[in-house]
Structure formats: structure tokens, C-alpha cells
């Protein structure tokens, strides 16, 4: 409770510190505008046109439905990875044998190109939700698994010793000794896993489904409708940035305060 209040109290200051980031994004948009002037509207529509398209799209109910479909797939896939990856990762970290054994398997999972997974999933599940969700899971699971594994693997033995010799009650042992350490590994892994899920969902949809943002992107491509394609990209990027910087980053900052 105290923790949540602290996050809320620091939130306005955190939000205000974002002006520098907004400035650099706007500088990047200026560069994009230059690209538009050099290469023309077909290759790279102007940022203004893209944003106007975006606003028009957000007023369109069918587009909102596509966004919801994509969000649903991404969150189911990411949610499963999060629960399964974290649980197994944390457990594996406690046992040296399990960590040793799981490492090469994770390397295989990470090393396998997501596009190959999509092909396999299309064969296994056909064209639909399952294919996309499966691809999201296999792409984000290893990242979360490895992060969680590192979290328990690197627990400081001396601290464990100390907690034992002071006879700390189990809840103090967990919340004050283990949790901050583990969380500082797990949380960044969740953030990268989420980023991965967000990217993979669009790619899987583009290849394997007829609805969702990815499918809309495929339609925009076939019609050479670059403003719509870019507007879709903007939707994906801004929703990811919203989740990452407005929701997750403030939590991460509070959690990692102990490091400094």
C-alpha cells in the first residue's frame, strides 16, 4: 500500500521528466519529415499526414476491433509466458542441475527465428488465434525464463545466511531479502518480453491471420497505402511506449531504488 502511494506520489515528477524524451522523439519526427520531402509521399508519407490518417482510423470502429483482436492475442500470449516463464525460471534457478540443463534448451528457443515458429505453428494450428498466440509465447517465454532464472540463481548466499541467523520470519525473509533482488531481475525481463510479444504478434498476424493489426498492415501493403501502414506502426509503437513508460517504468524505478 505504502509502495503504491509512493509510486503515485512520484508519478507527476516522473511524467514531467519525460519532456526531454518527447523532445528527442519530435526531433526524430522532424527527420522523418525531411525524409518525406526527399523521397516523396508514396515512399514515406509526411508525419502530419500519418497522424491525420491515424486520427481518422481511431474514429473508425472496424479499426478499433482490429486493435482489440491484436491486443487480445498479445496479452494472452504474453500472460501465459509471464506466468509459466516466471514460475519455471524461478524454480530452475534454485537448482544448479536444472539451470545447467535448461540453458542449452533456452539457447535453442532463442536462436530459432520466430518466422520459423510461425511456419510450424501454421502447420500445427492452421490460420487463427492459436498460431499467433503460440508464436508470441515461444518468442517471449525464453526471455522471461532466463531473467527469472538469473534472479534466483544470483541470490546472495551471505544474505541468506544473515536472514537465517537473525531468525527473520518468513514474510520478512521474502519481502525484504529475496523479493527486491529477484524482482530487479524478473521485472526487466518482463519488460523485454512484453516488447518482444508486441513485435511478434504483428508479424504473426501479417502472415497467419485475416484480422488484427498485422493483417491490416498486409492489406495496406497490397494497396500501397503507406499512410495507413505507418499509422498502424504508430499505434503499435505508441501503445508499447504507453505500457512501458507510463505503467512499467515508474514501478521499476521504485523497485530498484535500493540499488543506488
Amino acid at each position, binding site marked *: 500500500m505504502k509502495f503504491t502511494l509512493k509510486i503515485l506520489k512520484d508519478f507527476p*515528477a516522473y511524467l*514531467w*521528466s519525460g*519532456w*526531454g524524451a*518527447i*523532445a*528527442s522523439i*519530435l*526531433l526524430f*519526427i*522532424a*527527420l522523418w*519529415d*525531411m525524409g518525406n*520531402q526527399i523521397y516523396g509521399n508514396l515512399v514515406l508519407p*509526411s*508525419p*502530419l499526414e500519418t497522424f491525420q490518417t491515424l486520427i481518422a482510423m481511431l474514429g473508425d470502429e472496424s479499426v478499433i476491433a482490429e486493435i482489440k483482436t491484436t491486443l487480445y492475442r498479445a496479452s494472452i500470449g504474453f500472460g501465459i509466458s509471464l506466468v509459466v516463464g516466471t514460475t519455471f525460471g524461478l524454480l530452475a534457478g534454485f537448482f544448479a542441475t536444472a539451470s545447467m540443463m535448461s540453458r542449452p534448451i533456452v539457447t535453442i528457443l532463442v536462436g530459432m527465428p520466430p518466422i520459423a515458429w510461425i511456419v510450424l505453428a501454421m502447420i500445427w494450428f492452421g490460420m487463427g488465434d492459436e498460431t499467433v498466440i503460440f508464436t508470441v509465447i515461444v518468442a517471449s517465454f525464453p526471455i522471461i525464463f532466463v531473467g527469472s532464472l538469473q534472479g534466483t540463481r544470483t541470490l546472495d548466499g551471505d544474505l541468506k545466511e544473515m536472514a537465517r541467523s537473525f531468525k527473520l520470519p518468513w514474510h520478512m525473509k521474502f519481502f525484504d531479502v529475496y523479493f527486491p533482488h529477484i524482482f530487479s531481475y524478473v521485472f526487466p525481463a518482463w519488460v523485454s518480453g512484453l516488447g518482444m510479444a508486441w513485435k511478434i504478434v504483428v508479424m504473426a498476424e501479417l502472415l497467419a491471420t485475416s484480422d488484427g493489426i498485422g493483417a491490416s498492415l498486409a492489406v495496406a501493403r497490397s494497396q500501397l497505402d503507406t499512410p495507413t501502414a505507418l499509422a498502424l506502426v504508430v499505434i503499435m509503437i505508441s501503445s508499447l511506449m504507453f505500457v512501458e513508460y507510463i505503467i512499467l517504468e515508474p514501478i521499476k524505478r521504485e523497485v530498484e531504488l535500493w540499488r543506488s
Partner: protein
Amino acid sequence: MEQEKLRATNHYLYYPDEKDIPAYLAYGFRPVFLLLAPYMIITMILWGLVWAGIINLPFMNDTLTWHVYEMIFGILTAGSLAFLTTGIPELFPGMVPFVGKRLKYIIMLWVAGRVSFWLIDYLGVYIVAALNLAMLLWLIWYAKDAVLDKLQRHASLGYALVGIFVIQTWFFASQAGLASTDGMTILKAALGAIVVLILLALRRVNMEAVNELMEDKGIDDIYLSRPPKTNLAVFAVILFTLVELLYPQNSALGWLGLATGAAILAITGDYILKDEFILNQPFVLYLASILVMLSAGYALMGWALLDDKMDSINHFRHFITSGGVGLAYLVVMIIIGWIHTGRHLTSNIYTHLMIILMIVATLMRSLIPFFEEYMSELYLWSSIVWTIPFMIYIKVFYSFLLSPRADGIKG
């Protein structure tokens, strides 16, 4: 008493031996502020009358360009004179403060520059150019120690001044027919250079003033004005200025304007300290208002460019000139007026009024595009309201400027 002597006294040990220095020449800022406040009042009312169409000044048949020239360079040289002669001996202990007779001659050079400016129709552009460029050249020469300093701590100020000198020379060349660029275009570039100078100077003023204030009030925290934030803002301003110089109507300039606005606003993030809350301190708000005004100017210009409202751009630019730059001068005049006359940094109803009135005047002037039916009234009244802070300044600070330091030390 010991505590009193700590503030702004680095120059003390090296104060020159000159006999009988009158109080108004005892330190660089004194004569400048004594002259600048009435000069602002008189000339701004004159300009207001000109823009409202009540009086007519010829100025080589280009009143607008010369109005901008004077508001930019005429005032800048005075402001820099006060800032540098007051600041450098404090920043570089060991440097002999610039006071007395020598100060008087330089002040006379500035006054000559102003007189020549108002008589330009009789004297011709070359005399005005010579006097005004000489003034700026002297300032650069005076700031040379800062530029040549081994650690380069404050060198950027010197480089900015050199840039402004080049731009001013270019301007006079164009007015004398030696360069083909339109005068107003050059003045816009000059404004960009001045905003850079102000951002650089403000970082130093912020550090000194805010920490001083916190020490005074017993607020136990430290304020750091972080160079990367200022540098990002400076970079954005330079980029905006260059692109505006080369492609004034380009849509990328619109995004650059928005970016510059955000980058300048980012500097205010430094006022949010780790432990203590200082945004309720009036001087912090005064200083922040400078940044907010500059930021609003660039952001609104950017918006106008993107929204194809070209006519509004120069109105919005007054957020930068009347607002940001004007407040920068005013706030520095107030801060130096207290601290360097041996007093505590104090805020009262007068200082509040000065800042608020200047912001009100800026809003009246800059938001004309939204109230076009009152255009000529707003031109006139915004100028008048803008001068009131300087009238209050005369009332509050003239006695300080004309008498020795309250803590009894020299300077």
C-alpha cells in the same frame, strides 16, 4: 554578519584601489540597471505608439526591422555588460572587478550606441554599426578569460557572444547593402543565438540563485542544473534557427519548433529535487517562467507552421522576445539587485507584480492572432503593461543601486 559576507563576495579581495568611486559605478551592474530600466520604459512606450499608428518614426523606411534590431542587440549589450562584469569576477576569483572610471567609459560607449541608433536617419548606418559593434567587441574582449580558461567551464558563453557578433556584423552589412540577405531573416537568427546565450547563462544563474535561496531558507537539498538538458535545448534551438534561416516555411521546421519547446521545458525538470519541494519558492517560479515562456514560443511557432498559420508565427515569437528574453533580463536584474547589493534574495508583492505583469503583457502581445479585432489596442497596451515592471524596478531597486552594499563590503 559572517553569514552575510558569504554571498557574492569572491571579488572582494581583488577590488581595485581607485579612490572615490561613486556608488553607481561601484560594480558593473549598477550603472547598467540604472540606465536600462528607464530606457526600456521610454523606448517600449515609443514602439507601442508606433505600432498602434499614433506616431511615425522613419528608421531608413524600415521601422519594423530596426525595432527588432534595438530590442535584440541594444538591450542585449547592456544585459551582457551587467552580467559579465558582475559574474566573471565572482566565477574567476582573482580577476579585478571592472569598476569606476573604466566602467564609466564603457557605459558611455553603450549610451553613444543608443543615441546613434535613434538618430540613424541623420548619422547613417556606418556610424551606428561602428559604435554598436565596438560595444559587443569590447564585451567579447572582456569575456576572453572565460573563453581561454583551461577548464573551459564557462567558455560557451564566450563562443555564443562571438556568434552574436558575427550575426550583428552580417546584419549591418545587409543594411548597408553589402550583403543580400534580408535584415529580418538575420535578426531571427540573432534571436536564436540570444536564446542560446540565455539558456547558457540561465544555467549558471539557476545554480547560484536556487542554491542560495535554499541555503537562506534552510532547505536541506541540492539543486543541480544538469548540462545535458541545457545542451539538448541549445542543440534544438540552434537546429531550429538554422533551418528557419535556410528554409523558413518548411514543415520539418514545425516539428523542430515543437521539439525545441519540449527540450526547453525539460530543463524545468531540474527544479524537482530528490527530497525537498521547492516549486513553492517564488524565485524558482520566476526562473521557471523564463523557460516556460521560451518553450511556449517555440512550441506555438511549430504549431503555427504545421497548421499553415504563417501570419501567427511572428506574434508567437513574442513569447520568446517579450516573454522569455524580457523575463530573463528582469529576473536577473532582480536577483543581482538583491544579492550583489549585499542583501538577501527577497520576494515580495513588488517582485511578484513585476513577473506577473510581464507575463500578462507577453500574453497580450503574443496571442493577438486569437483576438485580431483588438489588434491595435493590444499592440499599445501590451507595450505599456510590459513597461510597468521596470517602473516598479526603479521604485524598489534604485535606492539600492545608488547606495553602497548593505553588508558594508566594496562593490
